[in-house]
C-alpha cells in the first residue's frame, strides 16, 4: 500500500483547507463559550463575542500557519519534543497577540497599571496553554488510535494470506511421487512450481503485487493440477495485456482457480474448461473465473476462500473493490473487481 510521506506524525497537515476551516470553526465555538461565561445584562454581548473571535482567530490561525510551515521539521523529532514545540508556538502567538493588544488598544484607550497588564498576560497565557495542551493531546490520541487500527488490519491480512489447502499439497506430493518413476523431468518442474506457490503463500510482506505475478502463480497452480487430472482439466485464458501491471492483493486470483478445480472440474467425470477473463474498463479491473459444475452439487465449500478474499479486499480497498459470485445450474462464475489505481492513504 502506498504510504503518505509522514505517516507516523501525530499533527494533522494544517496546510490543507479542511484543517484550516476546522480550526476556524473550533475558534468560533470557543468564542461562543467564553462569551456565554461572561454574559452581562449591561454590556453589549455581541461586541464581547466579536472581541473574543478576533483574538482567538488571530492566535489560532497564526499558530496553525507556523505549524504548517514547520511540520516537516517537527515530524523528524520525537513526539514529545514536537508536542512541546507546538505548545510553545501557540504560547508565542498568544504572547505576541497580547503584546499588540496592550500597545495598540489598551495602551491607547485605557491607562492600565503594571499589575493589571501582568494579570492580562498571565491569564491569557494560562488559557492558551491549557486549550493548546488539550488539543495537542487529542491529536496524539487520535493518531495512536489510527496506528492501532492499521496494525490490526495488517495482522488480519497476514492471518488471511498464509493459507494453502492441505488437499492440494498432499495430492501434489502424490503426483510427484508417481512422476519420479515415469517422467523425472516433469517431476522436477512440478517441484519447482509447487515451491514457488508455497513461497508465494509465505510472503506476507507485500500487500499488493502486480497482476502479472499473481496470474503466473495461477498458471503454476493449474499446471500442477493438470498433471493430476490429466485431460479432464482444460484452461482458457483471455487476458488483456494492458491489465498486467495493475496491483492486486497476493493470492486473490489463485484461490478462485483452486475453487474452480476443486468444486468444478474435479467433480465432473468428463472434466471441463476453466475460463479466466481479465479486462479493464473505467478505471476498474475485472477478473472473472468460470467453471462448469455438477447440476446438484453436494459440496458446499466455495464460501471459505471467497469470504477470505472479500475480507482482504475490504481491508485494502475499503469498499472500492468487490467479489461477486453467480451460481448457475451448471456453471459457477466469480468476478473480482478492483480499482486500477491503488488507494492513497491520507
Amino acid at each position, binding site marked *: 500500500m502506498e504510504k503518505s510521506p509522514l505517516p507516523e506524525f501525530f499533527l494533522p497537515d494544517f496546510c490543507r483547507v479542511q484543517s484550516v476551516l476546522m480550526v476556524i470553526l473550533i475558534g468560533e465555538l470557543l468564542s461562543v463559550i467564553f462569551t456565554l461565561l461572561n454574559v452581562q445584562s449591561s454590556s453589549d454581548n455581541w461586541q464581547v463575542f466579536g472581541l473574543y473571535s478576533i483574538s482567538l482567530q488571530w492566535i489560532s490561525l497564526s499558530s496553525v500557519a507556523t505549524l504548517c510551515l514547520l511540520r516537516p521539521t517537527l515530524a523528524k523529532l520525537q513526539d514529545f519534543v514536537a508536542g512541546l514545540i507546538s505548545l510553545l508556538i501557540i504560547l508565542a502567538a498568544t504572547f505576541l497577540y497580547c503584546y499588540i493588544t496592550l500597545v495598540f488598544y489598551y495602551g491607547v484607550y485605557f491607562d492600565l497599571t503594571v499589575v493589571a497588564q501582568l494579570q492580562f498576560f498571565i491569564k491569557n497565557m494560562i488559557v492558551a496553554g491549557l486549550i493548546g495542551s488539550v488539543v495537542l493531546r487529542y491529536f496524539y490520541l487520535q493518531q495512536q488510535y489510527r496506528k492501532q487500527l492499521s496494525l490490526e488490519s495488517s495482522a488480519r491480512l497476514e492471518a488471511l494470506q498464509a493459507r494453502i489447502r492441505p488437499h492440494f499439497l*498432499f495430492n501434489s506430493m502424490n503426483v510427484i*511421487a508417481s512422476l519420479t518413476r515415469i517422467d523425472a523431468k516433469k517431476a522436477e518442474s512440478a517441484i519447482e512450481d509447487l515451491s514457488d506457490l508455497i513461497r508465494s503463500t509465505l510472503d506476507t510482506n507485500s500487500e499488493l503485487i502486480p497482476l502479472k505475478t499473481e496470474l503466473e502463480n495461477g498458471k503454476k497452480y493449474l499446471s500442477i493440477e493438470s498433471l493430476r487430472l490429466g485431460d479432464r482439466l482444460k484452461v482458457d485464458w483471455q487476458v488483456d495485456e494492458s491489465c498486467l501491471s495493475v496491483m492486486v492483493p497476493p493470492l486473490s486470483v489463485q484461490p478462485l482457480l483452486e475453487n474452480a478445480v476443486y468444486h468444478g472440474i474435479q467433480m465432473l467425470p468428463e472434466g471441463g474448461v476453466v475460463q479466466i477473463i481479465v479486462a479493464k474498463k473505467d478505471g476498474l479491473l475485472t477478473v472473472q473465473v468460470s467453471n462448469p459444475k455438477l447440476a446438484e452439487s453436494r459440496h458446499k465449500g466455495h464460501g471459505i476462500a471467497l469470504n477470505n478474499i472479500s475480507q482482504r479486499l475490504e481491508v485494502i480497498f475499503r469498499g472500492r473493490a468487490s467479489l461477486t459470485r453467480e451460481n448457475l445450474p451448471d456453471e459457477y462464475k466469480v468476478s473480482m473487481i478492483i480499482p486500477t489505481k491503488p488507494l492513497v492513504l491520507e
Partner: protein
Amino acid sequence: MKILVVDDEPLAQQRLKQLLSEFEFVETVRLANNGLQAVAACQKEKPDIVLMDIRMPGMDGLEAAQHISKIEEPPAIIFTTAYDEYALDAFNVNAVAYLLKPVREKNLKEALEKACSLNQAQINAVKSQHEGRTNITAKISGNIKLIPVKDIVYFQAELKYVTVKYQGGETIIEDTLKELQNEFSESFVRIHRNAIVAKKFITGVHRDNQGHSYVVLSEEEKRLEISRRHLSDVKRLISQL
C-alpha cells in the same frame, strides 16, 4: 491376489500399480476411474482387495464401498486418501483400513496383509460420512444392481418388501421405507404409510368420487393413494412446485 485400484487421477493409479507390481503375492492389478466402474468391476472380476480413493467424480469411494459390501463374498476395501479430515476421524474410531497418499510401500504391504472385508460397524461409519447415496443397491440373483436415485419414481412397501419403481423397471430392495425417507427427505415425500414418492415426478392430486386422493405422476400410469394424514403435506408441496 487380485487387486482393483480405484482412482480418478491417472498418475495416482499409476503410482499404486507401480508399488503393487513389486509385491510377489499380487497376481493382477485392475484399474477403475470412479465408483460406478468400481462396483461393476467388483461384480465381474471378483477382486480380493479394492484400493479405493474417497473423493471421485460421479460416485465417490464411500458410496461405492456401501454398494460393494452388499455383493456376495465382497472384497476387502482399503481407502486411499490424500487428506480428508472428517473421514479420517471416523476411520480412526472404527478402524476401517485406510492409507494416506502418497502411500508408503511398507504401509501398503501391511494393509494388504491385514485386509479383511468391511464389517457392519465399519459400513455404518462409512454411511455416517455420507450425505445420501446417488444409487440404490438391489440384489438380483446373487448380483447387485445399481439404480440411480434420480431415475426413481417411488418406493412402495408391500408385505415384507419394499418395491422400487424407476424409469425402466421395478425391483425389490432390502432397505426399509423409514431409512429411505430419512436418507432422501430432500427429494422424496411421504404420501402414505406404505409409500414415498419423488417430488419431481408429482404433477398433481386427483380426488375420486369416494373421497380418496391420489398423486398423479408424470412417468407412471398407476396412481398412488395419499392417506388423509399426508394429504396436506402433498398439497403444500404441489403449490410450491
